[in-house]
């Protein structure tokens, strides 16, 4: 009973909030959100929606390989977007691939948010030597570009695990690689807002009341730094999906048997010279639309929450 009323009031508070108000008035945000929800829903319902199961080798027929999409000559109506070089239905592979890409994108951002929040809070609140060591590491890592770090770590993992082993645990490894490569972005943002927050009176009050440092950091300061984390986290999902696609395109990511959007683009690229552009360009289009709507949502969030992020 009490939780029900709490939920209702929370919902009505949300309905009256500035966030919802500005969302309703922003057409770009609404369209992006709808497109994102559609893609995400289609991807996660892939086992129900997909006409074929791309993981089931028994249903694949090599005779069906490189069929074009239905609007072109020589197509087969049971493969709406055509087939890839192994004869897998492209629509089904894209649905499953988007699911893999989204999983890695969200997983990597959760990991980097955990690392970034922890290190950002420590650096910002404790200051001193902890701060300068952590931020120096972040500087160095950022100056190397996160993509470079991810490629190097991916290469080392691949060399040490071997191809087969790497393929089996690729999802977890990619989440780990991208999460570790990108943590400085979030850590810097968190540190900046912690520096602003820790001068405020409520922190002094908490100290006077004798709360331990951990409690002040995580229960008092952290909630007040959440809005920039949301903004940068949204953009980072898009970045993580691109990084995953790049790694898979280089052959350091998802194997062909369990493709993500990036490895679909990679496997299609080998056939582009023979005229089968759809194998690479249709997954590419899905990837671009997915990343674009997430970026647009991130832009909108930044305008609404207006943390001073993009400076210098």
């Amino acid at each position, binding site marked *: 009973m009490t939780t029900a009323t709490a939920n209702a009031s929370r919902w009505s508070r949300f309905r009256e909030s500035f966030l919802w108000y500005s969302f309703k008035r922003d057409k770009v945000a609404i369209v992006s959100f709808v497109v994102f929800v559609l893609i995400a829903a289609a991807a996660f319902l892939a086992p129900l929606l997909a006409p074929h199961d791309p993981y089931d080798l028994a249903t694949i027929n090599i005779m069906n390989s490189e069929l074009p999409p239905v609007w072109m000559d020589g197509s087969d109506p049971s493969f709406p977007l055509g087939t890839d070089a192994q004869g897998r239905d492209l629509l089904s592979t894209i649905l499953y691939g988007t699911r893999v890409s989204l999983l890695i994108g969200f997983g990597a951002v959760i990991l980097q948010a955990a690392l970034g929040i922890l290190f950002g809070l420590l650096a910002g609140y404790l200051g001193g030597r902890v701060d300068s060591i952590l931020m120096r590491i972040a500087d160095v890592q950022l*100056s190397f570009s996160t993509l470079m770090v991810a490629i190097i770590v991916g290469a080392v993992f691949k*060399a040490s695990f071997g191809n087969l082993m790497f393929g089996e645990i690729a999802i977890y490894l990619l989440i780990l690689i991208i999460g570790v490569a990108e943590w400085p972005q979030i850590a810097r943002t968190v540190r900046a807002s912690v520096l602003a927050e820790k001068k405020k009176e409520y922190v002094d009050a908490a100290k006077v009341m004798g709360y331990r440092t951990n409690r002040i950091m995580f229960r008092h300061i952290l909630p007040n730094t959440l809005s920039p984390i949301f903004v940068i986290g949204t953009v980072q999902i898009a970045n993580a999906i691109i990084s995953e696609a790049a790694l898979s395109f280089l052959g350091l990511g998802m194997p062909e048997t369990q493709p993500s959007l990036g490895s679909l683009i990679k496997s299609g690229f080998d056939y582009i010279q023979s005229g089968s552009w759809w194998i690479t360009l249709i997954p590419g289009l899905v990837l671009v639309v997915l990343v674009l709507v997430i970026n647009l949502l991130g832009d909108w969030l930044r305008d609404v929450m207006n943390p001073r992020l993009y400076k*210098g």
Partner: protein
Amino acid sequence: MLAFLVQRIGQAILVMFVISVISFAIQDGLGDPLRQMVGQSVSDAEREQLREDLGLNDPIVVQYARFATNAVQGDLGNSYFYGEPTLDVIMDHLPATLELVIAASLMIIFLSIPIGVYAAIRPRAWLSKFFMGVSTVGISIPVFLTAIVLIQLFSIGVTVDWFPADTGWGQWLNDVFSTDGGMPSYGRGQELTHLFGTWDSNFFSWDGLLHLLLPAVSLASIMLPLFIRLIRAEMMEVLQSDYIRYAQAKGISPWRINFLHALKNTMLPVITVGGVQIGIMVAYTILTETVFQWPGVGLMFLEAITRSDIPLIVAYLMVVGLIFVITNTVVDLVYGLVNPTVKLTGKKA
């Protein structure tokens, strides 16, 4: 200034030390060198002897010291695949990558400054909105996808017959939208001009420039939106400042204000971000070179990974690390020279 210089160089050396430790750890952790060198018929005693001779049983610090001494002297071991010193292999491939980066940087500089300044001066013009829209979309397109689309459009070519071909205008529209293809999309071409050492250049022949065009455009496409947005944002802020208003009040021509007074201060942050980004472009060359089979260090690195050519991987890390560290240090120093206020913050940190 001297303190600033010393501090930055000290930092650069520290970073190179960390990179060398990581590289050494990779070299040490990946595989057993003995397995690469000897066959199965070698007995355990001989293996142990060889291990001792090669110094593989030495303490890890001694092994690292040897690695570092050799590295400083320019000896990073021999590549398994090429069978020659890894540094020579890298030096053979480096010019191709550098030319790609130079060409892409030139494109970025000559496109982003006019577009960024224009978008800042006339934020409401439809052309600025168009450029900003394109750059938002551009940020969302991964570089390898741009490259693939360019290949499909300009190398393979597209025939369009969306419009009725029997009418004059339909045929004309079909011709407008279709491309004949035929742009080179593979390698550097044959007509390279030999400059000095191992440097073969693409810049001095028509064929070379044609081969360079698509890779350079796709490499530039990843950074261009970022630079346009950055220049626009900085320029808009500068245009709000008092000295610009004063210049406007004095009746100085808008052209002179925008390009002489405002642009100068806009470029300060652009230099720092820009310099670092051009270093970062080296990372993106791995992707571009893979798509276009451009024989630079990026492609070489990727092939080294597939061949498990560990000395070459390690050497690449060291060289690229050095490039990053040098660009960052130079950018810092240049920024310190053009913007004297930075020295104060430099001391504090």
